[in-house]
C-alpha cells in the first residue's frame, strides 16, 4: 500500500459518515425546493445545499474518488444556475439534481464495496446542456464570494427578513465562557433557534478583544433566553413588531437547525465504552462471589463492602443506560429517505402517492436504524409498486386517486414498533395461494391467514410477481427483510385486508447488549436465556407428559405445550431423568413452546455478544455471554426455538 493510500485509508470511515450527513442535507433541501416553486423560502437551503456539495467535492478529491468529485462539482454548477435563473431552467435542473444525488450515492457506495465507480460523463454533459439553456448563462463567471460583513446577502433572504423583526445581538467571547464550552458557534446555534442570521460581523473593541455583532431576522414569537446573558450575549429589550406575514421557517429548514451542544461520536468508540462497561459488570460479579465467600467466614468489614458493592451495581446500571442512550438516534432521518425513494418511484410509475410520517422523533439504537434502512425501503417499495392500485382501479373501487403510505414509529416499553401501512389492495391471497400450491407449500387446511401469508412470502424464492419490476426488483427480498429483523432480535408481523390495504409491523428491541438472564444447565453446558423472553418456569414434576409420535407435550393452562429437550437438540448428554428438570415456557400467545433444561442456576445480568461468524452461527443460539468464571456461555434464542418447534409440530400432524 502506498503512503497516500495509507493516508486515505485512515480517514475513509470519516469520509463515508460525513458524506452521509451531507447527502442527507442535499436530499432534504432538494425535496424542499421541489415543494416550493417560488424558491424564496429556501434561499438559506440553497446555500446549505451548495456548501454540502462543495464539501463532498473537496473530501472526494482527498480520497481520490474522482467520480464523486466530478458529480458534486457539476451539481454545484446546477445549484448556482437555479439561483440565477429560477424560472427558466428550474424544473429540468431540479430533475438533474435529483439524478445527481443518486449518482453521488452510487459513486460513494462503489468505494465502500471497492467496486468500479459508475460512469459520470453522460451526467456531466446533460447538466452542462441544461445549464446552457438558461439564457445568457453560458460561460458566465461564477461569483459566489459574499461581501464583507454580510454573508447571507442573497435577495431572497432579504425578502424573508422584511417579513420579520430584526434584532441585534452582541457576543463578546471570553476565556471564561470558552472554558465553559460557550463560544461563538454556541451563540450562532442559539440565534439560529430564534430565526435567520442575516449579518454576522466581528468588531474590534477599543479596549482590545472582539465583539461579534449579529443581526437576526426573528421568527414570530421567538424570544432569547435570559440565561444567555451570563455567557456574554447581550441584546436590547425589544418589542416584537406585529407583521402580517410571519417569517416562519419552513419545516425542513427548522429540522436543519442544529440543536445546541451536539457532539458527533464515532459508533466504534461508543462500542468500546460499552465493552468496558461490560467488563466492569463482569468484574463486579466476581466481587459478588468474593463477598459471598467472605460471608461464610464471618469477616468483620463485610457489610461495608456489601454496601459499596451495591452502590457500584447501581452506578454501573446508570452508566450502562447512559451509554445506551447516547446510541439512540431519531428514526425520522430514515423516514426522510423513504420520502426520497417514494418520490422516485412515483415519478417512474406516474402514480400519485402521499407519504405520511408519525413518530419520527422516536429514538432507536443507531445500529438498529442502520440495519433497518434496507428492509424498510423494501417494504415501502412493495407498498408503492404492489400495494397501491392504479388510478383507474382506485377510482373504480371508490377510493381517492391519491394512494397513501404511512410510516409510523412508536416505543412500547423496551420495544420499538415500526409500521408500514398502505391503503392499497392488500396482499393478493389468490396469487399467494396459487404460488404456494406450485411450490407445494400450501397448508393442508387451505386457510391463508395473515401469519401463513407472511410465512409464505418470506420463503426464499417466493414471489407473486411473474417478473420483477423496477420498483421491487432492486434491493432485498422479503425473506431477507425478515432475517434482518430477526437478526436484531425483532419480529415481523402482517395485517392484510383485501381491498383495504396492508400493514407490516416490525417489532424491535430498543437497545441491545445487556439483559437480565436466567442461567440454566443443559447437560454439562451452562447456557443463558434472556428473562424477557420467558413466560414462566415450571418444574417437570408438576406437569403430565404425553407423547405423540416423536413429539413430547404437556398440558398447560388449558392447552397443549410442545416440549423441546435442549440437551438432545444440541447433542449434549443429559444429566437428569426424563421426568426431572425444568420447563422454560417461551413464545407468544399463539405459538408457545416449553424448553426443557436440566437445572436452573439463577438470575444474572449478562452482557450479550452477538455470534456473527458463519463458523458458529447455529439455529437456537442468538449470541454468547461471559459469566463470572470467564467461561463463555451460549445465549438461547427463544423465538427461533419456538419457530422450529411449531414448524416440526405442524410437519408431523400433516
Amino acid at each position, binding site marked *: *500500500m502506498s503512503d497516500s493510500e495509507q493516508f486515505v485509508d485512515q480517514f475513509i470511515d470519516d469520509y463515508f459518515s460525513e458524506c452521509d450527513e451531507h447527502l442527507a442535507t442535499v436530499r432534504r433541501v432538494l425535496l424542499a425546493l421541489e415543494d416550493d416553486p417560488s424558491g424564496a423560502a429556501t434561499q438559506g437551503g440553497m446555500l446549505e445545499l451548495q456548501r454540502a456539495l462543495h464539501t463532498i467535492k473537496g473530501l472526494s478529491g482527498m480520497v481520490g474518488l474522482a467520480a464523486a468529485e466530478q458529480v458534486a462539482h457539476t451539481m454545484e454548477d446546477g445549484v448556482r444556475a437555479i439561483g440565477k435563473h429560477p424560472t427558466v431552467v428550474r424544473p429540468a435542473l431540479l430533475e438533474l439534481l435529483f439524478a445527481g444525488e443518486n449518482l453521488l450515492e452510487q459513486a460513494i457506495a462503489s468505494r465502500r464495496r471497492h467496486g468500479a465507480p459508475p460512469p459520470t460523463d453522460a451526467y456531466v454533459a446533460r447538466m452542462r446542456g441544461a445549464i446552457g439553456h438558461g439564457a445568457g448563462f453560458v460561460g458566465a463567471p461564477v461569483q459566489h464570494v459574499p461581501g464583507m460583513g454580510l454573508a447571507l446577502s442573497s435577495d431572497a433572504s432579504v425578502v424573508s427578513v422584511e417579513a420579520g423583526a430584526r434584532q441585534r445581538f452582541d457576543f463578546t467571547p471570553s476565556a471564561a465562557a470558552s472554558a465553559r464550552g460557550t463560544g461563538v458557534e454556541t451563540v450562532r446555534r442559539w440565534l439560529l433557534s430564534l430565526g435567520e442570521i442575516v449579518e454576522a460581523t466581528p468588531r474590534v473593541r477599543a479596549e482590545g478583544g472582539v465583539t461579534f455583532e449579529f443581526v437576526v431576522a426573528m421568527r414570530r414569537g421567538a424570544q432569547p433566553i435570559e440565561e444567555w446573558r451570563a455567557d456574554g450575549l447581550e441584546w436590547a429589550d425589544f418589542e416584537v413588531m406585529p407583521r402580517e406575514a410571519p417569517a416562519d421557517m419552513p419545516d425542513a429548514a427548522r429540522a436543519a437547525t442544529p440543536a445546541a451542544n451536539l457532539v458527533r461520536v464515532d459508533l466504534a468508540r461508543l*462500542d468500546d465504552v460499552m*465493552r468496558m462497561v*461490560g*467488563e466492569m459488570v463482569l468484574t463486579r460479579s466476581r466481587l459478588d462471589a468474593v463477598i459471598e465467600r467472605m460471608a461464610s467466614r464471618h469477616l468483620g468489614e463485610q457489610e461495608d463492602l456489601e454496601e459499596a458493592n451495591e452502590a457500584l451495581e447501581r452506578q454501573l446500571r446508570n452508566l450502562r443506560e447512559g451509554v445506551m442512550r447516547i446510541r439512540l438516534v431519531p428514526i425520522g432521518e430514515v423516514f426522510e429517505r423513504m420520502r426520497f425513494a417514494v418520490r422516485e418511484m412515483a415519478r417512474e410509475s406516474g402514480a400519485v402517492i402521499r407519504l405520511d410520517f408519525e413518530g419520527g422523533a422516536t429514538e432507536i439504537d443507531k*445500529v*438498529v436504524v*442502520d*440495519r433497518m434502512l434496507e428492509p424498510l425501503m423494501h417494504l415501502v417499495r412493495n407498498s408503492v409498486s404492489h400495494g397501491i392500485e392504479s388510478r383507474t382501479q382506485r377510482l373504480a373501487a371508490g377510493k381517492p386517486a391519491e394512494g397513501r403510505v404511512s410510516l409510523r414509529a412508536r416505543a412500547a416499553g423496551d420495544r420499538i414498533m415500526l409500521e408500514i401501512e398502505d391503503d392499497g389492495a392488500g396482499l393478493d391471497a389468490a396469487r399467494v395461494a396459487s404460488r404456494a400450491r406450485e411450490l407445494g407449500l400450501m397448508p393442508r387446511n387451505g386457510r391463508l391467514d395473515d401469519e401463513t401469508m407472511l410465512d409464505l412470502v418470506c420463503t*426464499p424464492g417466493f414471489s407473486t410477481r411473474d417478473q420483477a419490476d423496477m420498483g421491487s426488483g432492486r434491493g432485498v427480498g422479503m*425473506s*431477507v427483510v425478515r*432475517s*434482518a429483523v*430477526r*437478526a*436484531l432480535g425483532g419480529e415481523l408481523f402482517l395485517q392484510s385486508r383485501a381491498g383495504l390495504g396492508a400493514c407490516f409491523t416490525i417489532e424491535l428491541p430498543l437497545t*441491545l447488549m445487556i439483559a437480565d438472564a436466567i442461567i440454566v444447565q443443559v447437560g454439562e*453446558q451452562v447456557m443463558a436465556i434472556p428473562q424477557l423472553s420467558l413466560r414462566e418456569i415450571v418444574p417437570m414434576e408438576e406437569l403430565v407428559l404425553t407423547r405423540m409420535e416423536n413429539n413430547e407435550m404437556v398440558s398447560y393452562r388449558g392447552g397443549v405445550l410442545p416440549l423441546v429437550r435442549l440437551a438432545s*437438540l*444440541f*447433542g*449434549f448428554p443429559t444429566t437428569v431423568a426424563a421426568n426431572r428438570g425444568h420447563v422454560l415456557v417461551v413464545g407468544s400467545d399463539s405459538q408457545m413452546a416449553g424448553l426443557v433444561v436440566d437445572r436452573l442456576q439463577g438470575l444474572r445480568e449478562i452482557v450479550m*455478544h*452477538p*455470534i*456473527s*461468524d*458463519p*463458523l*458458529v*452461527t*447455529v*439455529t437456537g*443460539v442468538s*449470541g*454468547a455471554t*461471559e459469566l463470572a*468464571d*470467564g*467461561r*463463555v*456461555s*451460549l445465549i438461547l434464542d427463544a423465538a427461533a426455538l419456538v419457530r422450529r418447534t411449531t414448524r416440526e409440530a405442524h410437519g408431523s400432524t400433516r
Partner: protein
Amino acid sequence: MAVRASGADSYILCELAGATYALRSDDIEQLEMVGLLTPVPNAPSFVDGVTSVRGRVIPAISLRARFGFERVPTDLRSRLIVVRHDGRSVCLIVDSAREFATIPADAIQPPPDGLAEISTRYLRGMAHLGERLVLLLDVAELLRVTSTGPEASDATALLPAFS
C-alpha cells in the same frame, strides 16, 4: 496482497504434529494461552467452540482437526493464534508458537504436489529456513466456511457489526 518494499514479510512460526507452519504477522491480531472453550452444537467438526478474547466472542478452530490429524489435549505450550481476515476474527489452536521469522518473498516456493500429510489447499507456499522446511498457511482458506444454509447466510450478512 501487496508485497513489502523490502520484499520480505515477517511471520510467526507454529508447530503442529511435528511440522512447522508460518502465518504472516500482518494476519495475526494476537497470541493467547488456550483458555476455556465452549462447544457450539452443530458447528463444523473442526470448530472446537467459542472463546472470549478481549471482550469479543469468536470461534476457535482446531488446526489439527482442520488438517485431519488426531486431536491432542491442549497443554501449557498450546497457543491460540487470533487471525483476522475479511472482517472476521478467528482463533487457530496450535501445538505451540514461539518464534518469529522474516521470510524473503523470493525464498517462497509453490507448495509441493505430493505433500503427504495435509491437503495443499491450505498452503500458500513453502520455504526453507536453514535446515527446516516451513509451510506457509493461507488464512483465507483456513477460515472458509464450506456449508451454510441459505437462512444462515442471509442472517449473517445482515448481523450488526459490533466487533
